[in-house]
Each structure stands twice: as structure tokens, then as C-alpha cells.
């Protein structure tokens, strides 16, 4: 099943950089926040809720909802407020039993 929720506008050709996503090397577009960049490569799940244990996706994309919180370079950050950079290490802990820490 195609999980992508969003497509990049055909007129846009963003540059990409290599990051590590859940232990695997992945090319992410730059010049945008991590939440948007993950949507653009079809990664719609941001975390597993530590309370409901259900998968979550970013909801507000403006720093309010904290649904896009994920471990970025070792710290829990809001992906929508974090700019993509080369070599970034993103760990969503999607397969952990209880999800990421709050």
C-alpha cells in the first residue's frame, strides 16, 4: 500500500541530503522542517503515542500539538520546528513496545 499522504508539487525540485532515519540512510529534502521532509518521502508516522500506543502523525505543523515529537540528534524535538541538515540522526522508535518517551 502506498502510504504517502502528500506529493511534492511537480514544479519543485528540492535539494536532498543524507540523514539516518531509524538506523537506515535516507535522502531527505532540505530547506524545510523534518516533519515536512518526512511527509515528502512518504513517512507519515511521526511516533507511537506513549499513552495510547497508537501511531501518530503530525497534526498542526506549527509547533503547537507535539504530535511530531521524535528523537533528533539524541534529543526529543518537535520535527516541525527542526530544520533538516546533512548527517541528522532521526529515531522514531516506531517498533519499541511503548513508543518514544514523552
Amino acid at each position, binding site marked *: 500500500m*502506498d*502510504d*504517502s*499522504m*502528500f*506529493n*511534492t*508539487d511537480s*514544479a*519543485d525540485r*528540492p535539494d536532498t541530503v543524507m540523514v539516518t532515519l531509524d538506523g537506515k540512510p535516507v535522502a531527505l*529534502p532540505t*530547506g*524545510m*522542517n523534518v516533519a*515536512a*521532509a518526512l*511527509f*515528502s518521502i512518504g513517512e*507519515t*508516522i511521526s511516533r507511537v*503515542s506513549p*499513552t*495510547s500506543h*497508537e*501511531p*501518530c*502523525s*503530525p*497534526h*498542526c*505543523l*506549527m*509547533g*503547537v*500539538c*507535539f*504530535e511530531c*515529537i521524535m528523537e533528533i540528534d539524541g*534529543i*526529543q524535538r518537535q520535527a516541525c*520546528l*527542526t*530544520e533538516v541538515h546533512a548527517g541528522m540522526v532521526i529515531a522514531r522508535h516506531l517498533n519499541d513496545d511503548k513508543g518514544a518517551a*514523552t
Partner: protein
Amino acid sequence: MSHHDVIVIGAGPAGLASSACLAEMGLNVLTLDEQHRIGGQIYRNMEAAPQHRRNLLGEDYTQGLSLAKRFRQSSATYENGANVWQVEPDGTLCYSRWGQSAQVKANYIIVATGAMERPMPIPGWTLPGVMGAGAANNLFKEAGLNPSGRVVLAGSGPLLLLEASLLAQKGVSVVALLETTPVIPPTPAISAAPKALRRTDFLWKGVAMLRDIKKAGIPHYKGVTHIHAIGQDRLEAVEAKHAGKQLRLDAELLLLHFGVIPNTHIFRQIGCKMVWKGDQRYWHPQCDEWGHTNCERIFAAGDGAVVAGALAAQYKGELAALEVAHCSGIIPAYERDALAEPVKKALKHDHWPRPLVDAIYAPRPEQINFDDNTVVCRCENISVGDLRKVVHEGVRELNELKVVTRSGMGPCQGRMCGPALAEVIAVELDQSPDQAGRLNIRPPLKPVALHEIAEMSLHVGPAAGANWLLDKKKSAGKKGA
């Protein structure tokens, strides 16, 4: 600890206007914004967005560019990615940037934190595939992303129609527009109509939006109730009731929008006096036409003070700046008034259609049909049923509700559930939401790593005492927060 004449929090229309205006007058201005590019939400990514994107978003978007230019040409120091996590009424502020926290101080702080979409819990809104209409708008502005599957838009407000018309123009498959707005406009709208007619340019924009929606053949339902997101691991369909019939629409994306409310966490943490706006059902800081809050050093500007749109925010940012310049002894009162006159005139002109728009799209209690299984607090996974139970056990106040249920204790700190918690209590007890009070907001306003605080060089003033960080509760109580 660095000291500035003025710190402006936020780089949206209000923050940019305040910062530029004050810097132009020679004041030392620090502008802090949690986003990475200036513009706030309305002008998000305006400087870097490619031309075709700007063309689609139109003049309401590109009009921000002249403000951006003015800000860039000014001497204001701009720091992006700056998460303000504590603000004191004396002008001291702590913020985190690039993994380091700093304490800074200013004579005046202008809080221009803008607005956010009103979170309205509906069944299934925690499913992946359900997001704010503003979120989809932001993804397009920032990254040129368009929904790839079928989209349902639901809720109420001009921005919902705007997003529908934008998606239609882009050729996105919109399967339905579900408006909770009633078919017949409410009575207050009629008395507000004559003033709005003085702004035919504005009204035409609305007409054009509706025309685009109609031309695209989007089924448009009004007076919809019981919106329900259905799906297992992600959204599969949207259900709703319309004119006594059950609608079911298969979709991959549900965009919700129930109007916008001020983003007030900083004001509330400071201890600013808050006022309930009954017709729009939101809290906002008490302030005068210059943006003076009850705290001498704290000013409010833009949609964070009261929701009135991008241009009004810019004008209010300008007015706050003029008053701050006056209070700083830079300009006398007559000069402030002379400079403010055209701004006030523009503000008045901009405001003419606002009462009509507010009346048509005002949130109404009868729109709300809370279902026991609906999650209200997304962070802590607390449902309407959980809340109802404790309300029936005697809980009457939001902070009590928070302590008993944990709703509002998660990482978002009640940003997403706070307004709805009050609405749930209001329905249960047949009262106005403001009677349940507001969640107390304490620092840190955003999660901050402990090592960052440990590494900070803190200035502890004589008045603050040794345990200023620990003793927040006491001082918040004194301010009557």
C-alpha cells in the same frame, strides 16, 4: 546576560512590524522566533518560496514581502529556531536555541506569538491522516506538498473555504467540504453586514473563493454535525450528519478547521490578566489599543492579543512599537500620536468586515457533540468519558481536572486540550467555558533538556531570591494567575 532595549517574540506580521519600527528608531531590538524562517504562519517561507507557489497563494501571501524587506533592512537582531521557555514580568526571558539556553533581559518585551487553529476534538481525530487545514497549508508554503489522495475538509471559518479553494485550484481531489456553519446566518451577522459592505474588495474575495469551490464541483454541505473520522491505523473514511441523513466519504486525508484562537501560553505564564471573549469563545490578554498589558514591561501585538488577521496584526505591531518607543523616551507623545494616526486609520479600514466574519463563523455550543470515546487530551490519551466521570464526581475547575485526570500534563502542556476541556465542563454543567477557569501555565513553556539549564549562566537578582527557578508557583499565585 545580554540586555536589549526591546525583545520581540515572534516573527509573523506583528513581530516583524514591531521589530523593524523600533530598530529604525535606533533601539537595540532582539527578535526571537521559534520557526526557521520569518513570516509566521500566514507568510511562512515567503522569502524562499518559488514564484509559482507565490502566484498560487496570491497577494494575501506576497504582501508580506515588503514587510520582510523592511525587517531585513532594519538593525533588528534576528534569531530563528529560538524556543522561549520562560518570560518574567520584569523583562527577563529564557530561551533555547541550537541546544543551548540563554537568559536575556529587555526593558520591554513585545509578545507577538500569533494565533493557532482552535483544536476541536472529534471522534477519530488522533488517526494519522487527520490534521489541521492550516497544517496542509503550511506544508504547501514550506515544502510545496500537495495532498496525494482524496481530501475531506470539515469545520467552520473563512480559512477552511480558503484552503478548499486553494486545493481546488491545485487540482487536488476534494471529495467534500463539510461546513458546521449553519445555512442561515445567525442574527448578529445581520447588524454587522452594513459595515462590511464598505469593504467590497474583501467581500469579493469571499465570493471568488466560493466560486472556485463550486467550479471545481466540490460537494459543499452546510450545517453539518457529528463529524467522525473512521479508520484502523490511518484515516479511511469520514462520516457526518447532514439534513437528517448520514454521509460517508472515503478519504485519505481529513483537514479540520474550527477557526483560530490566540496563542496565549506566554501571557499566561507571565501572569498577564486574561479576558474571555464570549462570542468567539477564547481567552486573550487584556490590553489597550497600544498593546499595553497589565504588566508594565509586557506588550501584546497581533493575533496573539486578539484574532483580527495578518494586516491588523501588522498595524498592531506598529502601534505597540510606537508606544514602546514613547515609553523608552525616544519619541514624545505628540510624535507617537502623529505616527500612529495613519496606522490607526488603516486598522479601522481593515476591521470593517471583521464583525460580519466573526458573527457568521462564531463557534456555537450546539455545534459541539462530544462523544464519550473521543480523545480530548492527545498527549495523555484522556477521553470525553474520562472527563465527564470526574466532572460528575464534583470537579469544577480546569486545574483540578488536570490533577485528577492528567489531561493537559503532557508535552503540549494543554495547548491542544485546554480549550476543549473547558467546553466539556461547560456542556456537562450547562455553563460558559470561562467559568471553569484556565490551565495554569508554568515554565518551561517548551520542553528543554536539563543539561541546558544546568549549563546556563544565570543572573539571580536580589529581588528574585536564591530559588527563583523553584519558586514559580508562589509568584504565580501572587500575580493571581
